[in-house]
């Protein structure tokens, strides 16, 4: 028989199998614990820390996506400490990354009364748009570093290993080896990275073209395979 643990989340008692994460237990109770990096289909790494909750008024907060429920624990999913951490993380993220195409994070910022001008003159993570293949564009100015694209490209799904993280700290960014074009990388254009991107940093070229107001003809031209450029067509 599976061992179980019993805990209270925001005053409500719940019994779950040992090993259940706090996030899973909270969802069973219909408690709203926000997440940014977490995705049901990828390995949870506890990166964004927006899901932190207060367990037993501990020294530090616990990431609900990876922290297991413990017996007799008292969990608060939204108190003053939790709110300060979530709000400050969102304020810092908003000061660094273009979140215009991340509606869920926008809603979260409203919910947590984020001051969108909290950090004047803060350095932003700006990158040139990467348009190096007929299928996707990559705009890492919109990347929050959730790691999902790197993970699905690697052991979480595809085992292609076209992508990696480069740099460190604030300068961390997603890249191919030596920043080569995707067409020169092992990428097989499976599209899984596009599917898991939460912010619009990765998107199909057609969607990008429509956003830019391109004509259908221009969009079609942009999605042609690049090697055709070298073929001379007699007309």
């Amino acid at each position, binding site marked *: 028989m599976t061992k179980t643990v019993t805990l209270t989340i925001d005053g409500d008692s719940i019994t779950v199998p040992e090993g259940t994460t706090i996030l899973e237990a909270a969802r069973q109770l219909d408690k709203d614990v926000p997440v940014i990096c977490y995705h049901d289909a990828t390995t949870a790494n506890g990166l964004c820390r927006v899901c932190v909750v207060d367990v037993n008024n501990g020294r530090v907060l616990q990431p609900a996506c990876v922290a297991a429920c413990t017996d007799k624990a008292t969990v608060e999913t939204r108190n003053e400490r939790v709110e300060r951490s979530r709000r400050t993380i969102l304020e810092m993220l908003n000061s660094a990354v273009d979140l215009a195409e991340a509606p869920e994070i926008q809603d979260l910022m409203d919910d947590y009364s984020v001051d969108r001008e909290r950090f004047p003159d803060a350095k932003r993570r700006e990158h040139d748009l990467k348009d190096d293949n007929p299928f996707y564009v990559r705009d890492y100015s919109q990347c929050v570093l959730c790691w999902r694209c790197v993970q699905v490209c690697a052991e979480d799904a595809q085992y292609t290993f076209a992508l990696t993280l480069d*740099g460190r700290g604030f300068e961390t960014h997603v890249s191919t080896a030596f920043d080569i074009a995707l067409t020169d990388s092992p990428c097989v254009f499976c599209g899984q990275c596009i599917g898991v991107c939460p912010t619009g940093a990765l998107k199909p070229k057609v969607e990008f073209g429509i956003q830019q107001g391109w004509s259908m003809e221009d969009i079609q031209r942009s999605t042609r395979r690049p090697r055709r450029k070298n073929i001379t067509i007699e007309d």
Partner: protein
Amino acid sequence: MNELDAILAPYQGRQRDALLPVLWDVQTAYGYISADAVHAISHTLRVPESDIYGVIGFYSLFHDEPVGETVIRVCTDLSCGLAGADDVLHELLVEIGIGHGETSSDGRYTIGHTTCLGLCEHAPAALVSRRGVGEHSVASATSQRLLNGTERYGAVVGGDALNLLQDLDQPLQDYAALRQALFDLTQEQVIAEVEQSGLIGRGGAAFPTGMKWKFTHAVDKWPKYVVCNADESEPGTFKDRVLMEHRPHLILEGMALCGYAIGASKGYLFVRGEYPLATSEHLVEAIAEAEAAGLLGDNIMGSDFSFRVEIRRGAGAYICGEETALFEAIEGKRGFPRIKPPYPTTHGLFQQPTVVNNVETLSAVVGIVEHGAAWFKQWGTEKSAGTKLISISGHVGRPGVYEINPGMTLRELIEDHCGGFVGELQAVLMGGAAGTFLTPDEIDVRLTFEDLRAAGSTLGSGAIMVFNTSVDMRDVLGRLGKFFQHESCGKCFPCQLGTQRQMEILVREPLAGDRERLVDIGLTMTEASLCGLGQTAASAVLSAIQRWPELF
């Protein structure tokens, strides 16, 4: 066979955990690691090229594009900053005629700054890398010395309880404690002695050493590993470097004792890349001597215990002092800390049961096993048993490493042992960049783990930096901010973003609302970060806000 093939030949059949050693070998030969080299390494170790590129990009000392024949890195952190490092770096750049981080047009020099090199008692310090030769440290750096050659630096030691710091540079003796353990003591007896001694970890986290050994010993899963954390990178901390340079055998014997106690036959000694002298000379030679004398290797001293130590060289990343990030580095990955639990005692290096101890901790074990727990407890207090090494730098008469009987006050240490204060005292930073400040009226605190904790401070790894009234505390805070900005690994959002925002606020002119911004950033990093780096990245700043609110 071309040169690259020759470099890679010894690594045929090896796996990803050989990645850092291969990258060092390639870079030593070529000065940098090219795309062609990455391709070849990928095939040798069967690691994706993108992953190798990501690893190169993580570590400060690795280059993925050509650099000068000689790369000079001048430390501009706290103690070196006080000693004029900015001027040394500036003079050097003017003399060569290049900007910061640039390479001279003749390809001879690349020059820039670096975070703390652990030579704070010889400030200002620099690390010089020469293609084909490797790295060496330069103490008391001037632009002339950096361009013209090297002089060896000596150890500056003192204190009132010399134990680890006695018998420096002594040739190999018998490993008496190990001999005693192998022939007279069971594993459980060794662990019990360490537990009874009250020894707590000397790396900063102060976890009871005996308990760590007991937990790992109890796990029924093999193989097990001993890892010596010699990634000493906390700014202001250099005690482990002195032990590695002058008492390497003590460390090796301590590792072997741990191996015997927990049932491990392999130990890794992970040394920060910025300690070339300790790594390439003292430790390598000591291991060879010990193996030749039958004190390490197979069937040590004719017993059925075998134990080998492999040195692993870091490549410039403070975060690798965090135990799980250190495992990742040995495994050939970016040095990202892991989520805990599970803990190293059950899931450590290669996901196997592992004891990871600091250099000073393992060194202290030798005396405990040889002379007994009671002998060790003649020093210190109930909760701070045994002697403790202190690295002291900044405005004192004689910066160096001091071995003390815990319980003496900070004032006594500085006035009676370290040559007194230089100038009028303004502030003391306890525990390094991740520590807390004390004001002049707080320095009668006793130097024990418990007294400092009660005073809202920390002994940490035993780093003490002293600042007199000539120092601009905003400048000190700005350097601390830059340090953490440079060293955050980037894994979790609070630290990745918070260290950047904290640094920006500390180096610019103060604005209304900065104090509240720093408190929010600081508490968010402290409470929500994934590892100890982020959780302490605001500790000094928050303590400064309490003590000098007018600065913000």
